[in-house]
């Protein structure tokens, strides 16, 4: 087990190093000069050159990579070109929105998807199953920005229950802040729940056809107990895999929903940084996300071991 963990950790570290090179190279290849972007069209070439020097953009490529990568190792993520504040500060502000949002959305999606999946699987082919899976199909198909706008018109414009967008900050009170995350969380959760419900259903159906389920039923266990205690637990592995992927997506891939609700999340920060060629922000945040995804994958692997005892002893 220790060797296995060690091996996984070494692979994770190598992935990080490789990713840092790719990320850095890609951002360097992108055409566009952050200094020119800041100074606009009226500034002279000399002035742009001056600012490039001030920003340290004229140093050799390898040197700049080493400087940046070295900083990452000591958890120094550099300073934003445009905002001129430490990148880590920007990330901390944004993660205070993105992380709670991702967690609420994930919780919502799980709470909706698992019961629906179980319900559908236990009534395979019957009217309830068809209806639930039809709804799920719709949930996958509906574009989430449209769904989000409909939610806004209904709950904010018409019913005035929640704000139409924006984030007041956690300083404004927990409930006020949560209220502004509610609609975006629902808008994010439903399509995810639809996918998850379909995965849960098919995984469960597969398990329900296994011999040991028949055995359990034959020894007299009630159907309900077989379904929830034996079948669901065995169907959890694909569900957990999808959940892990969804969490990584929810953390930074929610740029469209963040735009519709004008939330100051991580996705928007990256998007903005790319358009402004705030290279150091993009590079550092992408690296943080790579690290987060690797970590999530490790956690998912460990959770397999929890749901499947057979994996625990395996090397």
């Amino acid at each position, binding site marked *: 087990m220790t060797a296995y963990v060690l091996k996984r950790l070494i692979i994770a570290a190598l992935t990080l190093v490789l990713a840092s090179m790719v990320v850095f190279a890609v951002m360097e290849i992108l055409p566009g000069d952050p200094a020119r972007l800041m100074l606009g069209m*009226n500034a*002279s070439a000399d002035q742009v050159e001056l600012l490039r020097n001030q920003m340290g953009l004229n140093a050799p490529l390898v040197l700049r990579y080493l400087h940046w990568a070295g900083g990452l190792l000591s958890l120094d993520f550099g300073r934003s070109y445009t905002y001129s504040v430490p990148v880590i500060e920007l990330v901390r502000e944004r993660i205070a929105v993105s992380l709670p949002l991702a967690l609420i959305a994930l919780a919502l999606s799980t709470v909706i998807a698992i019961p629906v999946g179980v319900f559908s699987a236990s009534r395979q082919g019957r009217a309830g199953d068809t209806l639930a899976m039809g709804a799920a199909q719709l949930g996958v198909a509906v574009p989430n920005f449209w769904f989000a706008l409909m939610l806004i018109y209904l709950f904010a414009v018409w019913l005035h229950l929640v704000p*139409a967008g924006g984030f007041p900050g956690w300083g404004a009170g927990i409930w006020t802040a949560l209220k502004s995350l509610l609609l975006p969380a629902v808008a994010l959760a439903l399509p995810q729940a639809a996918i998850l419900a379909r995965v849960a259903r098919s995984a469960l159906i597969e398990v329900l056809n296994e011999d040991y389920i028949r055995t359990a039923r034959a020894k007299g266990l009630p159907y309900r107990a077989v379904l929830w205690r034996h079948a669901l637990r065995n169907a959890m592995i694909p569900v957990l895999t999808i959940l892990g992927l969804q969490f990584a997506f929810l953390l930074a891939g929610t740029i469209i929903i963040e735009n519709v609700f*004008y939330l*100051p999340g991580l996705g928007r920060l990256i998007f903005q940084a790319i358009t402004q060629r705030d290279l150091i922000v993009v590079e550092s945040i992408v690296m943080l996300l790579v690290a987060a995804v690797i970590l999530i994958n490790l956690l998912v692997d460990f959770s397999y071991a929890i749901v499947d005892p057979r994996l625990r002893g395996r090397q």
Partner: protein
Amino acid sequence: MKLWKTILAAAVLSLAAATSAFAARTDLVIGIPLEPPHLDPTAGAAAAIREVTYANVFEGLTRIGPNSEVLPDLAESWTISDDGKTYTFKLHTGVKFHDGADFSAEDVKFSLDRARAKDSVNAQKQLFAAIDKVEVIDPATVKVTLTHPQGSFLYNMGWGDAVIVSPKSADTNKEKPIGTGPFKFQNWAKGSSITLVKSDNYWGAPVFLDKVEFRIVPDAAAAVPALLSGDIQAFPFFDPDSVSQIKDDPRFKVVVGSTEGETILSINNKKPPFDKLLVRQAISYALDRKAIIDGASAGLGLPIGSHMAPTNKYYVDLTGRYPHDVAKAKELLKEAGLENGFKATLKLPPPSYARLGGEIIASELRDVGIDLQIIPVEWAQWLDQVFTKKDYDLTIVSHTEPNDIDIYSRKDYYFNYDNPTFDKVIADLDLTSDEAKRKELYAQAQKILADDAVVGFLYELPKVGVWDAKLQGLWENAPIPANDLTKVKWTD
């Protein structure tokens, strides 16, 4: 019973009195599409910096008014020497910066010297190019000597880039702007909003609002529900395409004004076959400005025939120089030896006027035999490839700087246009302060550009503002990027 009635009447009356006394709101939430990268207008070109700080947080010697006029600001008055080279500014006294520091002539000297210094990264450094020296006469008087008389000097000093900053806070203005304006900076929740509050020790006419929040709403689709729900009460720069959803609602005012944004089809004047005057003129004849304005700008925006805003006092109407005439365009191309047409590229930056306008222009040019390949680019790419490296045939962009016809005389500018006659007119303009002569020179300049068909002149970018019908005092036009809140108030 009678007593009961009296009490009721008194209660109603006092309630009415109370509501009318407290009726006028003093808070405002304004939606802006782009977040400023920082809040120092002396260190960056982004319009969003000015849209928050201009006239609100920072003030200059002079300022630009809602109709592009030059108004006194921190300078109460000024005298100009007979040779037009020396400006003596009399400053307001009793002015304080938001951090409590006193404002004086020393700050003016510091700010102007800082902006024109060798290592300055002021985005509009050319505004200060004519300054020879800045001298403090006494705490309330400052003398600026120019190397040559400059007609636009007072206007230049009204730009957001020429605001007066304090030496104590100049280096931290990006994060925590400290100015002399009627509003002081309170808070910036990055990615979300910027809050200003009324400054207690303001020297000038008091403002009506106590608190203003600029909320960043990047998505045009989100702006409409934000208005309808009342979360945001004004979008001074609204997406023209979304106006139809709001314009019949009596709760809101839709105000269409003009900007200083000349939207043009830029042409690489050195690249064959665009180096031929006939070809550029053919393109001008092929353009149908009305169709372009309808398609790219929801029918809003005035057509232009040269590089000058129709609202500008120096404007000459040259829109009739090249009427939409496909036959004429084909004839000119034939004369240029290109009767079989040719292929070229059209690089389009992200704004919708460019992307939508580009589609229409491509189809209009196809009608005369010019086959355009459309290449969408990001801003950063546009600045790099088109603007800096001049690697392009045609592109569409709005030149939003006010009074910027001089860009055609700049050496090595991305139009690759070179006309000594035009350069002479611009050089003369810089030296002339006589209004009648300036008008004449500006007219000449506009005419030369139209005759040379340097670029395809399309239309003036409109400013579409939408705000609560009870709100008063926001600018209708945008002579410079700004959201001047000094006169904004709520009415009943």
